């Protein structure tokens, strides 16, 4: 597949994630939209990984591992995302315990 398709698809997903972050007030949903953004990145990385692999093959590097790093990076992103989710949800829950809401607009004691 042409790499452009993947790029545009990823960017579209990424932008949808951003729009979600911008349009929602629920902290959890916002967080989920960020996860969506991360997944868009993952998709793009995998696509690039295969693109570089193909390029390496075309260049004659038959046994090469070109492109594995992209997929491994996705792996690390997942690891980090998991860790983030742990911490993030903990924070959201802590917040909820205190103000019984997950609405980020309630968060305005700190301003100016």
């Amino acid at each position, binding site marked *: 597949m042409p790499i452009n398709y993947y790029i545009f698809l990823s960017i579209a997903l990424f932008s949808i994630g951003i*729009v979600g972050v911008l349009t929602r007030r629920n902290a959890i949903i916002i967080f989920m939209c960020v996860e969506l953004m991360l997944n868009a990145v993952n998709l793009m990385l995998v696509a690039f990984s295969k693109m570089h692999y*193909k390029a390496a093959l075309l260049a004659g590097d038959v046994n090469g591992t070109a492109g594995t790093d992209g997929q491994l990076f996705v792996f690390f992103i997942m690891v980090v995302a998991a860790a983030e989710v742990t911490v993030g949800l903990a924070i959201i829950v802590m917040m909820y315990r205190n103000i019984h809401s997950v609405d980020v607009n309630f968060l305005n004691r700190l301003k100016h």
Partner: protein
Amino acid sequence: MNITQILFWFLSVVAIFSALMVITSKNPVYSVLWLIVTFFSISGHYILLNAQFLAIVNIIVYAGAIMVLFLFVIMLMNLNNETEPQKHRWLKMAGAVAGGCLLLVMVAALKDTDIKNQQAMVNEGTIGLIKNLGKELFTTYVVPFEISSILFLSAMVGAVVIGKKE
């Protein structure tokens, strides 16, 4: 148009549609579910790209573990349509327009790259197999791998600190 292309377009449409549903669903639970759909379609793309390991991990870790965690939390808080806070209409518009603009400029920027004619190899290529990836991960990438354990440790300590009752 071969089957791969058909699958590609199908998965793309599903992914985008479900992503849009994530951000537009009023009920948080639906959002989670649509997000899971999105993840599945992305996993489909992985499989299409012959990145089987990632496809599986994506489903297990993301759709399986993480999203369930989200679902748990949402259920725990008993969030639903009624409790879902809504932004002002024009704020939403502003957000959508801003995001749309970002999409536009990025697309505009990237549409003419010199790699636009390069292909991503689909259906073939072995690097996405767990054997290759595992070898790489435990040789070249062993240092980052170990480092990510520190990340987990700190996340764990953090979760304990935040979650522990005083």
